[in-house]
Every structure is written in structure tokens, then in C-alpha cells.
């Protein structure tokens, strides 16, 4: 009985934790940046892979779909508050992929964005 109960607890703890892992494994730029505030989550998180793939919620997403998501996000969440877009790029990916994404987001009406970074080890 105890075994079964603990197995169930562990199952639910594991599955709830995995549900939070929305972010893809990306080699982010190593920069100090500023600490991400827990109370101010980005409305949209877009990852850029080294080969130019865009990921939203860990799924490869076409630029046209990202544009559509940004437009609908701005229409609903953006009223009276800043629509925060967090871009998590691979640090070695060419700038053209970032430019394509930002051009599309600008056309959708996005004016501000943040780039995700990892603070260098040792704080340097």
C-alpha cells in the first residue's frame, strides 16, 4: 500500500515538473545581463537553434505562425501592458536568423524584446 502511494506521489511530482520544462536546450550567449524577475514572465518565448529553426514551447514553429501568435498575443495580453518577448538564441547562430524573426515581430507590432543569456561562470 505504502509502495503504491509513494509511486503515485512520485509520478504526479515528476509529471507536474516536466510540464514546466517549456524551454529547449540552447547554447545561449554568455553575458551578465540582468536577473530575470519571476513575477514578470515573458508573454512569448522563442528559441533560435543554430541551424535557424525557431521553437515556441519546444516545438519547431514557422515564422508565419510566430507572426500570427504575436499578433494575437498583442491583441489580448498587450492591452495596457508591455508585451514581453524573450528570444533565446544559440550564440553561434548567424544574425540573419535573429533579423528575420525581429522583422516579423516588428511587423506584428512588437517594440521591445529581451535576449536570454547565461551569466559566465564566476560572474566575469
Amino acid at each position: 500500500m505504502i509502495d503504491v502511494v509513494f509511486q503515485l506521489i512520485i509520478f504526479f511530482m515528476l509529471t507536474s515538473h516536466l510540464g514546466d520544462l517549456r524551454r529547449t536546450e540552447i547554447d545561449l550567449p554568455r553575458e551578465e545581463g540582468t536577473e530575470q524577475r519571476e513575477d514578470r514572465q515573458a508573454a512569448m518565448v522563442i528559441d533560435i537553434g543554430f541551424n535557424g529553426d525557431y521553437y515556441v514551447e519546444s516545438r519547431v514553429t514557422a515564422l508565419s505562425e510566430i507572426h500570427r501568435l504575436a499578433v494575437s498575443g498583442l491583441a489580448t495580453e498587450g492591452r495596457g501592458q508591455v508585451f514581453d518577448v524573450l528570444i533565446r538564441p544559440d550564440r553561434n547562430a548567424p544574425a540573419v536568423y535573429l533579423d528575420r524573426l525581429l522583422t516579423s515581430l516588428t511587423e506584428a507590432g512588437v517594440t521591445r524584446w529581451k535576449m536570454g543569456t547565461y551569466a559566465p561562470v564566476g560572474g566575469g
Partner: protein
Amino acid sequence: MMGAKRRRRRGSHLGALPLTSMIDVVFLLLVYFLVTSSFKEPERDLSSSVQGEGGGVSASELQPQIVDVVRTADGVEYRIGSRVARSREELRAVLAALPRDAGVAIRARRDAPIGAIATAMQVAQDEGYVKRSYVPRDE
């Protein structure tokens, strides 16, 4: 006599604890913590506005400093007007000498690594440029 008997009985009752299940549970908890503990570095971010190539910092009459990020055979260069910085320190020295009011606009050549753009954004932030924007190049 009676007290000793009761103590013995209680002791034997405790001894009947199911140890096999207990070990199972302990191992499962161990596995759970091994699986869920993460050694990932905490993420941080750099903020910037975004503007079209035609301009966009309309509130200011001053022209922002434009930092061009260029990939070269030796690595990366940051071009600010006629000045060229080949490292973070050189870029810091150039930006430190320029007026902050107009802000800084960063743009990059198609093949420049995004990591170098992040460096330019970081240095501009560290040097106290409040208005920071990124200018994506049109295709």
C-alpha cells in the same frame, strides 16, 4: 514484572515494521531527487527595443551611435563610424567616450554570430546607454 512484559511486547511490535517496503520507498525517493535535481545555470536577459532600418527613435532628434557587428577572418569587429573595436574592451572604450543621450543602435551583418550582438548589447548596457535598440537588416 508486568512493566517488562509490556515493554517487550511493544518492542516486538515495532520490530515488525516492513523493511522491504521501506527500502523500496527510500530508493524511489533517491531516484526521484536524482532525476529532478538540475544543475542548469540560471538564465538572465538583455533588453532592447527593436526598430526598422529606416529609423524609429522618433522621440529624439539626436542620431544614435550605430554599432555594426561584422564577422571577419579573425573573429568579430564592432564598427562605430570610422572607429573599429576588435574586442569587448575596445568596444567599451569607444562607447565610454561617446555621448549617452542619443542612445545606441546595434545592427549586424548576416553572418555575424548572435553572441557578438549580445556582447554589444551588454557593453552598451554596462556603459549606461538607456536607449538601446537593435536594427534588423531587411532581406
